[in-house]
């Protein structure tokens, strides 16, 4: 599928301060991640005129090795150097390319848990979003991106965690992925296949239905223009762009959506309640090989202590393992044994919240995040319990990834771990961000109504992870997809 980027290019050469004001559309969708791509596809298939604008470049899923340095450079925002500042810093990662985060993620799928939906209903007065009401949306998403289990065995490192959890009597499960599997050639290698990212699914669907795509173009501001909106932006080559639209869907993700809205003077409950899933890691060594270059994505998660704590196995390539050992400077040699090692994570559903603010004179927003003492205790508990499961799986050595962490070899040594993770040396990261513009009818805390319409702003909608009322406690893209479908069908009068 050839993309349509060129079709909208400015005709003739223009200088750096040239302005292209020729864009008019019925619906402008800003951002092409899961929220934006799904919104654009349904709108275009319903016959609406749609312009999908994406800040990042239009690259094929195969343009680089997954989880590589090249991918960081090509597809991560700020090369992956994005910290949420606070007493414990949390490094976060966002996609910045056509398809957004779906192009760089692991594809692990969860529905929004029923109890989370119930909480959103009671606390945020989110209407028409019970499990039963969401069922059709979950099912449609699962079908559209081929959510499926591995047809063969999971990677050894993933099975190790599962094994340890089962020995302890803990609930552990394989998580399905949005993935088209091919049958393994001879049964020895893991089955290959293609992750069903947005550039493999909804972006081509939108284009096939007539949507136009403008990649490498950042929307800087929105302004009311008669009954509609005027979006001003900038292409990567410096040409300024003006787009007139009757309706606008902002789908820039949980950090960029509030940043764009605040820059546009729209601030009511915008960017005040960012949530994320902080994770702390452990690099574990085993007596046998558990890792290889072909390892792929680990699929098991331990949910015994969910939603407070979840455990899983991370991408464990040699470079990431070396990074995982950074808090153990005297163990340089350990990285050489990467085939016997893998990285595991403990993730919490936190109490803490953060803010997204724009800074005068700067392009990038300031993200701040405050972990509570309970969060730091839960993180420490997570490290200890994860260590317990890994030792039960016969790990021979554990390197918890925070400053001053002891090396652990036996169950009794887990007592040496702190009861509260030291905030200043915590080395936390996250790939899950949401809730910066929550939806619902509770005007005290919500930025948009139950279907994503921004309060007080006619014809302006949000459709991405920012709308999720709180941290879902599970990988979020399944929730983002289901709510994007639900909300766009409501807009189209089809719900």
């Amino acid at each position: 599928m050839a993309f349509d980027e060129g079709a909208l290019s400015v005709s003739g050469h223009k200088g750096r301060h040239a302005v292209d004001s020729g864009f008019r559309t019925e619906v402008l969708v800003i951002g092409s991640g899961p929220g934006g791509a799904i919104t654009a596809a349904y709108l275009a298939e319903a016959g609406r005129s749609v312009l999908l604008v994406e800040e990042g470049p239009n690259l094929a899923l195969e343009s680089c090795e997954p989880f590589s340095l090249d991918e960081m450079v090509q597809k991560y925002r700020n090369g992956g150097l994005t910290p949420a500042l606070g007493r414990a810093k949390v490094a976060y990662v966002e996609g910045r390319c056509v398809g957004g985060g779906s192009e760089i993620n692991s594809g692990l799928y969860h529905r929004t848990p029923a109890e989370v939906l119930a909480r959103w209903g009671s606390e945020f007065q989110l209407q028409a979003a019970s499990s039963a009401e969401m069922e059709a949306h979950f099912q449609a998403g699962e079908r559209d991106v081929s959510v499926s289990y591995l047809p063969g065995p999971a990677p050894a490192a993933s099975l190790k965690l599962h094994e340890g959890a089962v020995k302890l009597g803990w609930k552990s499960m394989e998580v399905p992925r949005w993935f088209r599997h091919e049958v393994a050639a001879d049964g020895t290698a893991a089955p290959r296949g293609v992750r069903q990212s947005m550039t493999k699914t909804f972006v081509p669907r939108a284009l096939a239905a007539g949507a136009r795509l403008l990649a490498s173009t950042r929307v800087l501001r929105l302004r009311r223009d008669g009954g509609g909106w005027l979006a001003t932006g900038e292409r990567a080559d410096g040409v300024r762009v003006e787009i007139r639209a009757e309706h606008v869907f902002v789908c820039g993700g949980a950090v960029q959506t509030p940043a764009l809205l605040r820059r546009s003077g729209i601030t009511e409950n915008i960017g005040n309640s960012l949530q994320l899933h902080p994770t702390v890691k452990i690099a574990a060594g085993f007596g046998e090989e558990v890792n290889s270059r072909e390892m792929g994505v680990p699929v098991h998660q331990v949910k015994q202590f969910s939603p407070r704590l979840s455990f899983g196995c991370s991408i464990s390539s040699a470079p990431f393992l070396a990074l995982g050992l950074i808090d153990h400077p005297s163990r340089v040699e350990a990285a050489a044994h990467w085939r016997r090692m893998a990285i595991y994570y403990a993730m919490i559903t936190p109490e803490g919240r953060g803010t997204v603010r724009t800074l005068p004179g700067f392009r990038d927003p300031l993200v701040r995040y405050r972990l509570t003492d309970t969060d730091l205790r839960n993180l420490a508990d997570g490290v200890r319990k994860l260590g317990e499961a890994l030792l039960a799986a016969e790990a021979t050595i554990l390197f918890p990834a925070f400053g001053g962490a002891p090396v652990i070899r036996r169950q009794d040594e887990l007592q040496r771990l702190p009861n509260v993770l030291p905030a200043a040396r915590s080395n936390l990261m996250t790939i899950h961000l949401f809730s910066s513009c929550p939806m619902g009818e509770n005007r005290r805390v919500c930025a948009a109504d139950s279907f994503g319409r921004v309060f007080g702003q006619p014809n302006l909608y949000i459709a991405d992870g920012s709308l999720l009322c709180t941290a879902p406690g599970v990988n979020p893209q399944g929730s983002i997809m289901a709510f994007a479908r639900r909300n766009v069908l409501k807009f189209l009068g089809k719900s």
Partner: protein
Amino acid sequence: MFRDTVSALCHTVVEERCLAGIGSAAPEANSVVQFVLAQHARMPDFLRAPVVVLTLMFDLQCILKHGAPFRRLDCDQRIQHVRDWRLSRLGFRRDFVRLYESLAVLGWHSMKERCQ
């Protein structure tokens, strides 16, 4: 001065964290330096200037202790200065070293993996 200090810092990290005295860092470490400088240019715009200032502080602070800036020290003195900042009681110093160590270690191992 900034580029020279980043270069000296990256070579030191590679020496200490990736090679541990075995083998020679050049010329692969030069690619690591290029990667780290490029990452600095990609980081959020409001952080770039503070990182430059801290890098210069890190460099010049050595004059008091060793009589020369970091980029002019020998390998052992450089490793010692990095360790001092890594173990510092001041959070910003630890964060500074972690930033460069993370980038250099990731860059080094990625390049090595690519070569294989």
